[in-house]
């Protein structure tokens, strides 16, 4: 349930952003982001909010690991 997924910011509009989460587009809130982010940055996304910035390298590594984990979590945590 506490899983946060690395996502790339495609478009930013004040406190909202459109992100790419493993191929899907999602609107997320930047209300609790502790630092400025720009288009192209990676952020951790949890339940519709970006909660922290994450570097590209570890974002990619985590995404590789998550792909199979998420498939079996159909309940959607």
């Amino acid at each position, binding site marked *: 349930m506490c899983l946060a997924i690395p996502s790339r910011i495609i478009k930013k509009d004040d406190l909202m952003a459109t992100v790419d989460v493993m191929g899907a587009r999602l609107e997320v809130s930047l209300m*609790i982001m502790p630092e400025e982010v720009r288009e192209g940055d990676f952020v*951790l996304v949890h*339940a519709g*909010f970006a909660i*922290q*910035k*994450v*570097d590209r390298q570890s974002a990619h590594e985590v995404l590789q690991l998550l792909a199979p984990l998420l498939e079996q979590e159909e*309940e*959607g945590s």
Partner: protein
Amino acid sequence: MLENIRRKIHEVSRSIGRPVRLMEVCGTYTVAIFRHGIRSLLPESLSLLSGPGCPVCVTSAGDIEAVIDLAKNRGVVLTTFGDMMRVPGRNQSLGEARAEGADVRVVYSPLDALGIAAENSDRDIVFFATGFETTSPLTAATVYEAEQRGTENFYLYSVHKLVPPALRALMSSGEVKVDGFILPGHVSTIIGSRPYGFLADEYKKPAVITGFKARDILEGILMLLEQIVSGEARVQIQYTSVVREEGNPKALSMIRKVFEIADAQWRGLGIIPQSGLRFGTEFSKRDAVKRFGIEPPQIEEPPACSCGDVLKGIKLPTACSLFGKRCRPETPVGACMVSTEGSCAAYYKYMPQDK
């Protein structure tokens, strides 16, 4: 690289020369450790236990009853994360209540629940706010947002729980025999490493915040073993890409704006002092407890279920007489079987030989 870490873990374990028990406190790790086959890489003297790391599992049956009542009898639209749908209350789950006609809607984000409120201004919308510190800043921000947008019919039933007080309760009970802690990465993204300081300072237990990859978990284990060997006890961060010592200050201030700390009922563990979040005064008109006069019923744990001992690392799931028999993921008896991230459910899924 992995092989390197694995070899070092074996070396250090040998020089410790006694059995070592490490507790992991995050449902995602419980599952990741099985998936990566991490136990098979570790020496026999090293055991990994799963602590109270699954927020779905520790949501009390009384709180489930309370939200079922809201949706069934109070004309409320109850919105919830999908994970909560199968969790049993006294006689049924939210999913079963919905099948009987209760208005229960699964949302991905609390902001979606706020959207439902805006579209249904003639109904009261309650969001069932479950989860640890990873999630509570988001529900707090949603309450704040409801106020900004003037969405009057949006309420929250907060059963949010806090990880460090639960660990303190485990340690102070004196029953829990562990040599170190693997601490939850995404909870710590929010709260940072400082709130765990007491584990090292008061209880002399090494602790490491790790990430989710096999390499992260193994590295974290090695860092713990190295602390043990050198007789140290510190809180270290292995997951440096997203965890800072001070956490996420913006998220923390959002939590403080909306909530205050209170005692909380944990399924399997009972009431833990100062381990939950309830509404503070500023936004209390959004509090479903006040608005609907909620008093969650006390519901006894099923007597044969050992989930409390499993969460404390005293028993393995397989030592429970109901495991895999009466208690299975489709028909969970106790807390640890209710979510895919619960320890009993993870054991059931990944250890077919024990079924």
